[in-house]
């Protein structure tokens, strides 16, 4: 970031202000009201900017469709157990068969309903994407705050570590780990993805923290006797959160892609139906040339959900980074 960006960034992120002396319980309520109002105002302003970006709106609409799919994933198996994506088998169909009224997208090699699997895939993608992204961003933000605030050898050590992790080919690292540990469950996968993907976040948060810690209000907090933890979490963290939030959208995509690739290569959790798993089945059972109704939907969903998060991320970038607003 240039100094120019820095200035603009400063104008958008107001430091948490000092409160006048009020009784503690009143002060807390006052602060909560004040904080909530400001948060809502910032949110509506941000939404105004976001709404004017057509690509961002397209991304958000796409994402709503996937969210609907994830929510609807419980319905088919309630209608009839044969629609269970994992165990349900149509008694009349032994193998893969094209779309019909009974099975909108056809059935897979065991006679399971592909549409039901697709819906559950959306749920799994959201769970994997959001939990891995949340952990990665939380970890990256913590590391960035600590490195930026304490500086010196702490900073050097943490940032060297971030550099090392940054150059590791994530998918292959997970492969190697699964070679050693054996079959990875979906939660192990999520955890490893998070551990491998926090470093870009920590770099950005660190550079923000470096400038924030030089501010007068941090100085004031220090003089009034606040400890490092309080300064970091109460005074610096709120100002880097918008940026961390932006990074979360990009981490979500990365996590979904890694999980899908892993499942595609045959190292997914055998207890879950993910889109990557569906592709692995159609590929490994040799149906890819015969069953386009089975090959096309899962990959289409993975690509579209990636696209939608990417578009949302770019639009959010404009909200968080006002410099870009003028350009568009």
């Amino acid at each position: 970031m240039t100094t120019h960006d820095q200035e603009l960034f400063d104008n958008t992120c107001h430091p948490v202000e000092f409160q006048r002396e009020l009784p503690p319980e009143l002060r807390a309520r006052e602060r909560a009201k004040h904080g909530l109002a400001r948060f809502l105002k910032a949110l509506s302003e941000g939404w105004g900017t976001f709404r004017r970006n057509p690509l961002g709106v397209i991304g958000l609409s796409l994402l709503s469709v996937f969210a609907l799919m994830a929510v609807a994933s419980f319905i088919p198996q309630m209608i009839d157990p044969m629609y269970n994506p994992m165990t349900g088998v149509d008694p009349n169909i032994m193998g893969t068969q094209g779309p019909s009224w009974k099975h909108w997208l056809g059935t897979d090699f065991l006679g399971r309903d592909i549409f039901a699997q697709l819906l559950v895939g959306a749920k799994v993608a959201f769970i994997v994407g959001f939990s891995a992204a949340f952990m990665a961003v939380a970890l990256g933000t913590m590391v960035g705050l600590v490195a930026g605030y304490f500086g010196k050898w702490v900073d050097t050590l943490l940032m060297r570590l971030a550099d090392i992790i940054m150059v590791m080919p994530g998918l292959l690292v997970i492969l190697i780990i699964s070679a050693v540990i054996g079959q990875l469950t979906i939660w192990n996968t999520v955890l490893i993805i998070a551990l491998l993907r926090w470093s870009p976040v920590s770099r950005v948060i660190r550079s923000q923290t470096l400038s924030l810690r030089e501010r007068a209000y941090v100085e004031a907090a220090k003089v009034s006797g606040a400890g490092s933890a309080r300064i970091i979490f109460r005074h610096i963290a709120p100002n880097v959160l918008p940026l961390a939030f932006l990074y979360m959208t990009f981490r979500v995509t990365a996590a979904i892609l890694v999980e899908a690739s892993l499942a595609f290569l045959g190292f997914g959790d055998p207890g879950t139906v993910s889109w990557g798993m569906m592709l692995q089945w159609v590929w490994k059972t040799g149906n890819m040339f015969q069953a386009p109704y089975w090959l096309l939907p899962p990959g289409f969903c993975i690509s579209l959900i990636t696209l939608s998060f990417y578009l949302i991320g770019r639009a959010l970038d404009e909200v968080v980074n006002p410099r870009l607003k003028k350009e568009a």
Partner: protein
Amino acid sequence: MELRRYLINRTIQIIITFFFIMTLLFILFRIAPGDPSSMIIDPHMTPEDVALIRQQFGLDQPIYVQYLVYIKNFFKGDFGISFYYGEPVLNVIKSVLPNTLLLFTSATILSALAGISWGKFAAWKKGSVSDVALTLTGLIAHTLFLPWFALIMIWIFSYKLELFPLNGMVSPEIWLDPECGFWAKSLDVLHHLFLPLLVLFIIHFGGFLLVMRSSMLEVVKEDFILTARAKGLTDREIRNHHAAPNAALPVITNVGLSLAFSINGGALTETVFSWPGLGRELVNAVSQFDYPLAQMSFLIISALVLASNLVVDVLYAYLDPRIRY
């Protein structure tokens, strides 16, 4: 001389990173349930036999001795014997490494060149139909799920149209035929290379294009572009000689950062196309519990990523004099 110091620094950092990765790998294999000999030991063996095997593998040594032996063997090129192939891992890796380098470097260079020149063009004609078309194509190509896209390309071009081979790198009938000379063989490899290369190209050029476009839009606002215009230079000259070289710098950094990402993609592409490369060996070794091969192909891939990062740094320092001071 500043340049030399910068490069020495970077080299040292990269060597440290490599040692770090080696150590992590060592620890990973040691904390794993069971020890490396459990693949060979079976329950019928007597405790004496087990002890003998452990001694042969050096597993009775203290852990730091094992670590030093591990490091020493790596630099001696003694990577152990592959369980699956039954031959030294070094030979396996030697035979597949050139194939990976061929596919990977050609794909990276081609997509970077295309991304830079198209991104330059799109930014220069900002808002025009060609800009919107290029940017949207780049955006969509960038987000395609690679293995799925590869399967669809195989389906269309190899299965339906029968233009390219389904998989592999060579056709045995051409390579076993003594009549066929160097050109016929090269042509055969190119024929096999085309589709995986195309897939990697389409997936990767989009990222370069998007970065180049936004970086170019920044550079165009700079004063020196105004100066160039005031001097009466042609539009084309300003674009190609004043704006583009400056805008390309972030793209080069991006090449470095996305290398790990494209190596992942390379492994997926190699697996789908059965391209006999390092990434596919790693995937196969992991599913066959071939630990020595999995471990070493992972280390060699990491070394490749690090070496290419170093190349990118050198290139960057060479292109941008500011970095040297």
